[in-house]
C-alpha cells in the first residue's frame, strides 16, 4: 500500500533553514567531541563502531569457517583415514588427497587402518563452504578460526598436512577448538570407505548418513 504524500507545513524558522543547520551542527559537534576524546583514550576499541584492526580484533564465532586444520585424537593420533570424501564433495576441488595403508611400525601414529599419505589444500581455490567438514566421517578435517590468509606468493597459499596439523595444535593450545557436533567413529573404521555409505550398518555411520542427503542436494545446487 502506497504511503500517502503528506504536504508538510514548515514553520518560518524551518524555512529560514539556518537555525536547522545550527541544530544539526550541534549534533555533529557532540559526536565529534565524543570521538575526539576517544581518540586520545588508550587501549583498543575506543570508538564504538569501528575496530582498529591489527591491534583490535573482533570476537569471531566459535563455528567460524576459516583456515583448515587436521585434528588429532586424545592419544595424539591422526584421525584422517584418507577416505577422500572431502576431496569428492569439495565444490572448488581444492583438496587433493592420497590414501595409503598404515605401515605396521607406525600404528601408534594413526587412528585408523588407512591414512592419507599426502593431504594438500589449495586455499586460493577454497571457498570456505565447510562441506569437507560436514562430510568427513571421522571429523578429521575442521575449519578453524584463522582468517589472515594473505600471502605474497602463490606457493604460500598451499597447505600441506604438517601445516594443517600445526594449525590444530595452535588452536588446541589457545582453546579455540569448535565444540564437537558429530559422533566420532574411531573405534571401528571402515576398511573400504564407500562414497555412498548406504551399505554400512554401523550406528555412528547411520547418523552421518542422515545428514548426508541434504548436503548432497546443497552441493548439487552449488555446482
Amino acid at each position: 500500500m502506497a504511503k500517502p504524500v503528506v504536504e508538510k507545513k514548515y514553520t518560518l524558522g524551518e524555512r529560514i533553514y539556518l537555525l536547522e543547520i545550527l541544530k544539526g551542527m550541534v549534533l555533529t559537534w557532540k559526536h565529534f567531541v565524543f570521538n575526539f576524546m576517544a581518540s586520545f583514550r588508550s587501549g583498543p576499541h575506543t570508538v564504538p563502531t569501528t575496530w582498529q584492526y591489527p591491534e583490535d580484533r573482533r570476537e569471531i564465532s566459535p563455528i567460524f569457517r576459516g583456515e583448515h586444520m587436521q585434528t588429532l585424537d586424545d592419544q595424539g593420533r591422526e584421525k584422517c583415514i584418507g577416505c577422500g570424501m572431502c576431496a569428492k564433495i569439495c565444490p572448488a576441488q581444492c583438496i587433493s588427497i592420497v590414501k595409503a595403508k598404515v605401515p605396521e611400525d607406525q600404528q601408534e601414529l594413526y587412528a585408523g587402518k588407512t591414512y592419507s599419505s599426502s593431504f594438500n589444500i589449495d586455499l586460493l581455490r577454497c571457498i570456505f563452504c565447510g562441506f569437507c567438514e560436514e562430510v568427513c566421517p571421522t571429523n578429521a578435517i575442521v575449519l578453524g578460526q584463522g582468517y589472515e590468509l594473505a600471502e605474497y606468493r602463490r606457493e604460500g597459499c598451499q597447505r600441506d598436512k604438517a601445516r594443517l596439523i600445526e594449525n590444530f595444535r595452535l588452536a588446541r593450545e589457545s582453546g579455540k577448538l569448535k565444540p564437537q557436533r558429530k559422533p566420532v567413529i574411531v573405534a571401528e573404521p571402515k576398511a573400504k570407505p564407500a562414497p555412498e555409505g548406504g551399505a554400512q550398518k554401523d550406528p555412528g555411520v547411520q547418523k552421518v548418513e542422515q545428514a548426508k542427503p541434504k548436503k548432497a542436494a546443497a552441493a548439487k545446487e552449488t555446482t
Partner: protein
Amino acid sequence: MDDWLIALIKVVFIWVWVLLIAVIMTWVERRGASMIQDRLGPNRAGPFGLLQPLADGIKLFTKEDIVPDKAKKILFSLGPILFALPAFSAYAVVPFGDKIVLGGKEIILQVSDINVGFLYVVALGSMAVYGIIVGGWASNNKYSILGGLRSTAQLISYEVPLGLALLAITLIYGTFSLREIALAQQGTFLGVFPNWGIFKQPLGFILFIVTAYAEANRVPFDLPEAESEIVSGYHTEYGSMRLGLYLFGEYVNLCTLSALIVTFYFGAWHLPYINMAAFLGPISYGIASFLVFFLKVSFFLWLFVWVRWTVPRFRYDQVMGLGWKALIPLALINLFITALAIQLTI
C-alpha cells in the same frame, strides 16, 4: 632593492604558509569527517596520522599521468593550472597581520596594499570558474561537462550576492583597501560590541558566508562535483598530480575565503576589548597579530569541514532558487538599509 627583497620574502612566506595550511587541511578534513561519523580516520602515518598528507602527495606524484584518448590535450593540462592560479593569487591582497618592526624598518604584513584590493578579490573569485569549465570541457565526458555547466551557473548566480554583501562593507568603511578595512575594526562599537564587521553587518555576514560556501564548491553547494549524481563532476577524468592540483586549489580557495571572512567580518588581527599594540613590543606584536589572524582563519577552515559533514547537498534548482530568489533580494535590502543608516547617522 631592499623593498624588493622584503616583498619577495613576504610572497614566499605567505605562499609556503598557505600551502602548508592546505596540506594540513586535507588531514583535518579526513579526521574531522571520521570523528563526526563515529570513526577515527587515518591515524597510522606518523603521530595522529599527521604524515597522511605526505603519503597522499607521494601517491599522487607517483601515479601514472593519464590523458584520455578523446580529450583535448592542451586544454586538459591547462584546466588544473587555471583553477589553482587564481586561488593562489588572491592571497596577494589579504592582510595576514598588522605590522612588524625589524631593524628599524616597519614592514606591513600584507603582500600588496592596493587601493582596489576588495575588487581584486572579487575578480579573482570569478576567474576560478575557468579552471573548472576548461577541465570539464576538455575531458570529453558527459559527467565532466555537467559538472562544468553546473559550476558556471552556480558561480554566476552567487557572484552577485557576494559582491553586494561586500559592497555594504565598503559603504561602512569607505574604502576598497583590505588593510584599511582591517585597521578600522579596532576598539568597540556602541560601547559594548567589539568594532567588528559582523556586529555592523549581521545579515551581510550570513550572505557572505553562504555565498562563500557556494564559491568554494563546498557542501551544501558542491553540485559541480556531486559524487552521488555525476561521478565526481569536472575532475572525473583527472588523475595523478593534475587531480592533486584541483584538490589543492580547492583547499587554497577555502583558506582565502576564510581569510576574507576574518578580514571583513571578524576584525582581522584584533582581539576583542584588548589592544595588543599597547603592551607588546614591536616584534612580538607583529607575531601576535599574525597568530591571532590565523587562529580566526583556522576556526573558519574548521567550520567549512564541520558544515560539510552536517548538511546534505541542495538540489540544483534549490541552489538556483536560493541564489536568485533569496540571497540577491536580501543582499539588496541589506545594501539599502546600510546606505540609509549611514545617510542618517552622518
